[in-house]
C-alpha cells in the first residue's frame, strides 16, 4: 500500500511537470500548432531599420502574417537587408507591395507593415520587396524640423 501511494504521487508529479511544460508552451510562449505550417521567405532593403529586431512581427492591415527572421547588411548596396518569413497561406502579396517599418504606440516595439499593390504577379520565395519605407528616427525628425525653422 505504501508503494502504491508512492507510485501514484510520482505519477502525479511527472504529470504536473508535463502539464507545466504544456502550459509554458501554449499559454506563455503562444506556441500554436497551426502556425508551424509552411512559410516562404521574402527580403526587403531598408535605409534604416531603427530598432527593428529579429522575431518582430510582419503585419498586413494590422493582422500578423509572419515574422522577421534575420537582419543583416547588404554589402552591395550598403543598406540593411531584412529577411521575413511570411505564412504560406498569405500568397497574394503582389510584387509591387510596399513594406514600411512602423512603431506600435509612441515608444512601442517596431514591426513591419506591408500594404499590397495592384500588380497581378505575386511575391514568391526569395523575392525582394522593392518599395520600402524606413523607420522614423526621432532625431532625424527633430533635425528636419529645426532645419525648416532656420531656413524660413
Amino acid at each position, binding site marked *: 500500500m505504501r*508503494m502504491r501511494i*508512492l*507510485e501514484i*504521487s*510520482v505519477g*502525479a*508529479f*511527472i504529470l*504536473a*511537470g508535463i502539464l*507545466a*511544460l504544456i*502550459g*509554458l*508552451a501554449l*499559454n*506563455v*510562449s*503562444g*506556441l500554436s500548432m497551426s502556425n508551424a505550417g509552411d512559410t516562404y521567405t521574402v527580403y526587403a532593403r531598408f535605409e534604416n531599420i531603427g530598432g527593428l529586431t529579429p*522575431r518582430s*512581427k510582419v503585419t498586413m492591415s494590422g493582422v500578423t502574417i509572419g515574422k522577421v527572421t534575420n537582419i543583416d547588411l547588404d554589402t552591395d548596396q550598403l543598406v540593411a537587408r531584412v529577411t521575413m518569413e511570411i505564412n504560406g497561406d498569405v500568397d497574394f502579396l503582389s510584387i509591387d507591395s510596399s513594406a514600411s517599418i512602423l512603431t506600435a504606440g509612441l*515608444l*512601442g*516595439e517596431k514591426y513591419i507593415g506591408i500594404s499590397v499593390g495592384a500588380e497581378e504577379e505575386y511575391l514568391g520565395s526569395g523575392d525582394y520587396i522593392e518599395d520600402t519605407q524606413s523607420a522614423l528616427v526621432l532625431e532625424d525628425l527633430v533635425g528636419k524640423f529645426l532645419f525648416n525653422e532656420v531656413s524660413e
Partner: protein
Amino acid sequence: MDRLALLGRAGLDKLAAFGRSSMILFQSLIAKPQPVMMFPLLIQQIYFVGVLSLVIIVVSGLFIGMVLGLQGYTILVDYGSEQAVGQMVALSLVRELAPVVTALLFAGRAGSALTAEIGLMKATEQLSSLEMIGVDPLRRIIAPRFWAGFICLPILAAIFAIVGIYGGAIVSIDWLGIYDGSFWANMQNSVDFGEDVVNGLIKAIVFGFVVTWIAVFQGYDCIPTSEGISQATTKTVVYSSLAVLSLDFILTAVMFGEL
C-alpha cells in the same frame, strides 16, 4: 618551500577528488546500466527528491512571481508601459529565475539530504555490507538517486515557472488592474518557445546534473564520521550553489549573449 608543497598537495587533492567523482559518475551511469532492476528504486527516489520538494518549489515560485509583478509594475508605471509587466515576469522567470532558484532550493532541500543519507550509509558501513553480499553500491544506491535528481529538476523548474507566472498574473491583473488581454498578449509575443522555454529547460537539466553529481559524490566520498558527514553536507550546499550560479552565467552567455 613547505608552503609551496602544501599548495601543490591541495591542488593534487582537488584533482584526485575530481577524478574520483568522474569515476563514480561513469561507473554508476554508463557502465552496465540495469534499467529494469533500477525502476522501482528510481520511483522511490523521485518521490523523495521530487515530490517532497514540490511544496517549497510551488510556494517560492508563487511568491517570486508575485514580487516580480509588483516590482515590475511600480517601475514600469512611471513610463506608462505597465502592460509590459507580463513580458518582464515571464521572461525573467523562464530564462533565469526558474532554473536558478529551483536549483538552489533543490541543493538545499534534496542535495543536502542525499549527501547526509549516503554519508550515513557509509559511516554505518552499509555500503561495505552491500559490497560484501555482492551488490554494487554504485548501481544500487548512487545511480537511482542520480537519475532521480536529473529527472526531477527540469520538472520542478517548469512547475516553478508556471506557478510564478500565474502569481505575477494574480498580482498585476487582479490587484493592480492591468488589462489581462495585453498582459498575456505581450507575454506571448515576447516569449519564444524554442529560444526561451527550451533554453531554460536545458539550464535546468544541466543544473540537475551538476547538483546531484556534487551531492552524491560528497556523500560517497565523505569521511565516515559524524563530523565528516556534517562537513560533506555543508560542502554540498556551498559547492552546488557556486556551481549553479557560475554555470548560469556561462550558459546565459552562450544561449542569449552574443559572445
